[in-house]
């Protein structure tokens, strides 16, 4: 398992993907930090975290797109699946590699916090809480992206598919706002990523929200493992 994790991490940075993703993430995070903190003179980073929600939606498909689709395309999955490693081990290693990539991106918040500490006193509990919340939500998005990547051998389709799904997830709030049926509205509200993320961003940590993201992550990792298993029987 550690072999796959190591290889994936090396692969991110032996191709442009790793650099583009980190650069894009840091650019936007830096941009929002300048506009919404430094420029208007506040040490409250809440607005930055809110804006980054949509950037994460776009960045994660880039991280996950090639994880399984490329293996299938170049038939390297034959090496993984005939090696003494379990399917769960393969999926977990791939997931962790994407998670580490995301964590590298999130390090930009720490840099911003340090910049703030020179001119004001930043609320570190909020910053750390947000990094934690971004990790929780990111894990869920990564699991979804991983699942989509396992369905196709085309990297572009994997990326666009994940974008599309992430967009639909982010639209859940606006859809539910226009629903006249209370039951469906309640259902959609409880599936909203954004509400839960906003709770975190405000500093409200609810166990139910944590459980929600962990459940989504585990569920989609399980689905991914099933897809790989099913392919053997096709």
């Amino acid at each position, binding site marked *: 398992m550690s*072999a796959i994790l190591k*290889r994936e991490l090396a692969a991110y940075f032996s*191709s442009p993907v790793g650099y583009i993703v980190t650069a894009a993430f840091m650019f936007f995070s830096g941009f929002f930090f300048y506009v919404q903190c430094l420029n208007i003179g506040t040490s409250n980073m809440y607005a930055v975290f809110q804006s980054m929600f949509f950037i994460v939606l776009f960045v994660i498909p880039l991280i996950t797109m090639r994880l399984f689709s490329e293996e299938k395309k*170049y038939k390297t999955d034959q090496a993984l699946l*005939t090696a003494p490693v379990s399917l769960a081990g393969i999926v977990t290693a791939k997931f962790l590699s994407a998670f580490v990539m995301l964590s590298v991106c999130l390090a930009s918040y720490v840099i911003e916090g340090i910049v703030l500490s020179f001119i004001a006193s930043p609320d570190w509990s909020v910053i750390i809480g947000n990094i934690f919340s971004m990790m929780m939500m990111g894990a869920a998005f990564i699991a979804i992206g991983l699942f989509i990547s396992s369905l196709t051998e085309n990297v572009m389709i994997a990326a666009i598919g994940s974008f599309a799904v992430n967009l639909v997830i982010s639209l859940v709030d606006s859809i539910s706002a226009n629903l006249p049926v209370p039951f469906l509205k309640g259902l959609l509200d409880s599936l909203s990523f954004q509400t839960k993320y906003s709770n975190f961003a405000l500093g409200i940590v609810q166990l139910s929200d944590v459980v929600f993201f962990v459940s989504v992550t585990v569920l989609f990792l399980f689905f991914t493992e099933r897809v790989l298993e099913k392919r053997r029987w096709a």
Partner: protein
Amino acid sequence: MIEVKNLTKHYGKNIALDNISFKLNEGDVLGFLGPNGAGKSTAMNIITGYISADEGTVTIDGHDILEEPSEAKKRIGYLPEIPPLYQDMTVQKYLEFMYRLKKVRKPMKEHISEICEMVQIRDAEEKIIRHLSKGYRQRVGIAQALLGYPPVLILDEPTVGLDPAQIIEIRKLIRDLGKKHTIILSSHILSEVQAVCDKILVINHGKIMAEGQTDSLTLLGRETRKIKIVAEGREQNLYSALKSVDKVMNVERLGETEKGCYEFIVESSADVRRSVSKAVARTDGIILLMQPEGRSLEETFLNIISGKSE
């Protein structure tokens, strides 16, 4: 070492493998022979646990590939039809990755360079796989399968894309490995199977059409022997001399090949080379060529595939 029982695999309505069974002992080298699409690769993919069979079992050294996949897979080195190479890694990094993936417990640096030496890719160790030629990729694929010297090696068309000198080297390597390892290799090159394997399994349309030792298959259907003879002398004299030899059933005249030399095909029910030689000498003729017209593996193979039995 390897036991395959009643393997059956369908792809939709097509049957890819139909009730295949065989057993291999330690040190056996088995050749899968069959035309394209016969089910060779499917069988190998099932044996290595890449895909699953609809029915049947595969046991490697007593470990079922489905029940104890880790234990079984540890014992297999597999070279698939398309070598599973990560395009953006160097050969060295790739082999180190595969070494860790397979949980090999030997000193890594020495082990990898020893294998690179065996398949002759030392000069490409630092190169990125994407830039390698087909022959090198194939050999990196073989190197990957050899990591950890697993007791079972499964090689799907191992010499594809190699140049003649490399083919000879790799065949020699496989023969050497066959002393200690149990090997299954597939090929559509018959002479290769003949040269490397001691057992042959001919597959077509997912069924075993023939199986046996390489020698016995080669000799299959050789009750009547044919010898080609080119001799110098007078045609009529030579012809009647050949005809008169004991146990000769038929002599076919093929005409003059060069001035004063005639070609014949002699069919007999026993080895008549000595008596033929004496008979020709009695007519003052000289034998220039005497060649047994054995049925080649190709002929046998084509007969088996087309379902002809003699």
